[in-house]
């Protein structure tokens, strides 16, 4: 289907929450979805609200497939029951959790099967024990999250979730290196088969071809820019896809402006890795207000941590960086870049965790 089909399904950008959560009649074909949902954007925003804010966490059982995988850089959760349990635990740690949606960029790759990319600033007071961040710090902060969901007949059948855990740790007053080392030490204990996804994923990213947007798709120049940068190290050429007015926010509080800034981000990520391979797994685009276009890319990098850089002395381990990026395009060039990857998971691998 065309990237801008169903124009009646609006981006949430620029629309108040009161409007977004007002019930409305169905305005998109959603076979098998509950009548309460008017379109795929509404499905994502409303079910997030119902589960996380209305605290009807048991709705996970009617919104997640029984055996679905939730892929995160820190591990894989399996099935609606595990997702339900994890959500209860998470809300007990951050009782006032407020997942504030910034955008939902989606595609309908086959009729009735949607892939959504939901960018969120998730706020909550860390008042309970959290599986990753540890004991309560009492601090209320936000963390940027992007969740990609493959949805069919009201069920999420695959999910990929990335969170800027490193900056979140900093905001909570937690030393991110100490946090990563603690989890890496735990990773090295027990049944190593639980890291099977990471081991297999590093191989998959390195040895299999990803997807390529067609030339007339808005995501095409963006995807090509990342490939040109990471596979060919032609960072200047990659930068031609970027407006001189670009603003980019990457994990760890990285906030840059201008083409030189964007190139700096990409080079920093590439610099510590040797024999890098870039793989694009999904792309989507949707119209935004004022004629701009939102593009979502889900992508991964593998490379040997063989050079000293932002991640310190080389560990010689094969690393997986799993990322989702949201872009705003104007005139065919990137004018905003919001990229999320879990750098705690990267450092965890460097420290010998996650099967690395």
């Amino acid at each position, binding site marked *: 289907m065309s990237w801008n089909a169903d124009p009646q399904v609006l981006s949430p950008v620029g629309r108040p929450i009161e409007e977004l959560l007002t019930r409305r009649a169905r305005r998109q074909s959603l076979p098998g979805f509950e009548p309460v949902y008017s379109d795929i954007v509404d499905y994502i925003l409303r079910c997030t609200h119902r589960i996380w804010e209305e605290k009807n966490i048991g709705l996970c059982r009617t919104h997640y497939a029984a055996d679905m995988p939730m892929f995160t850089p820190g591990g894989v959760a399996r099935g609606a029951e595990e997702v339900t349990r994890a959500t209860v635990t998470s809300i007990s740690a951050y009782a006032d959790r407020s997942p504030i949606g910034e955008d939902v960029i989606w595609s309908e790759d086959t009729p009735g099967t949607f892939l959504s990319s939901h960018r969120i600033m998730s706020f909550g007071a860390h008042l309970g024990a959290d599986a990753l961040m540890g004991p309560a710090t009492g601090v209320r902060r936000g963390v940027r999250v992007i969740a990609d969901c493959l949805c069919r007949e009201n069920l999420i059948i695959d999910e990929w979730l990335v969170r800027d855990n490193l900056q979140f740790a900093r905001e909570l007053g937690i030393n991110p290196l100490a946090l990563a080392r603690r989890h890496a030490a735990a990773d090295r204990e027990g049944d190593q088969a639980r890291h099977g996804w990471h081991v297999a994923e590093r191989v998959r990213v390195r040895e299999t071809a990803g997807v390529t947007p067609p030339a007339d798709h808005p995501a095409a120049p963006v995807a090509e820019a990342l490939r040109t940068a990471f596979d060919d190290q032609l960072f200047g050429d990659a930068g031609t896809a970027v407006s001189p007015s670009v603003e980019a926010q990457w994990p760890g509080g990285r906030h840059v402006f201008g083409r030189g800034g964007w190139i700096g981000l990409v080079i920093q990520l590439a610099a510590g890795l040797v024999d890098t391979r870039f793989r694009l797994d999904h792309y989507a685009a949707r119209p935004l207000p004022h004629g701009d276009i939102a593009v979502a890319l889900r992508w991964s990098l593998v490379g040997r941590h063989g050079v000293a850089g932002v991640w310190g*002395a080389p560990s010689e381990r094969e690393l997986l960086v799993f990322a989702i990026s949201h872009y705003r395009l104007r005139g065919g060039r990137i004018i905003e870049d919001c990229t999320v990857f879990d750098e705690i998971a990267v450092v965890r691998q460097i420290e010998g965790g996650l099967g690395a």
Partner: protein
Amino acid sequence: MTVVDRLCAFARGDVTAARAVLHNCRTAGFGATAYGREEGAALFRAMPLDLNPGDAVVSDETVALFGNDADGIPAALFADVHDGQIMRLWALGSRQHDAGPVDATHVPVDLDLDQRGGAFDVVAVDHPALDPNGAEALRRLGQDWIDGQPRDIFGPVGRARPILLRAASGGGRSAALMMVQGLTPTKGVARFAVGVLIGDAGKIVVDAAGRAAGLACRRVVELRPADGNGAGAAP
């Protein structure tokens, strides 16, 4: 109320105007970042701005307002808007919110990408509401800063390079929000916002609070430093 009226009221700390501010509006100002209506309203209650609606530059996408803060020091407010809703705010002024700096990972940046020196880009397609006269005036101003680097605006920041983030024209005036970046002797890249009003009396407002907060921010250059404790010395 017009969106200009709502912005002026919100910037005075009037929370009844907050309904026009989106639930996910990011407010950058006073050396801090606030998210949403309540946090944004709290910033302006603490540090209200007195803005002049007569100076407003309004387009379909942006609003720029100029005035003073509670100390009488020049201030400015830039907003991204859509259908009367306020999506994003930048408040430029001198007062600093005492939020405390948070570590951020430092990114090495080449500000010029060319030893022939940087040029100040005003790309029409990026700023469709900017008229040609406004664009030319901004181009001259930005290039003058690159070439002359007036110390009264930039202070100790060396090799300053402005980047145009928002620009629009309206009512015979043009307004621009720029991010000025420079290489400091000890802190790497420093940046601060500058608001420019072209036409009438003309104004330049520097986000002094943002500049101070940026220089105070601890920049982490290595996430696994040799000292082993993740402190990651700043440049």
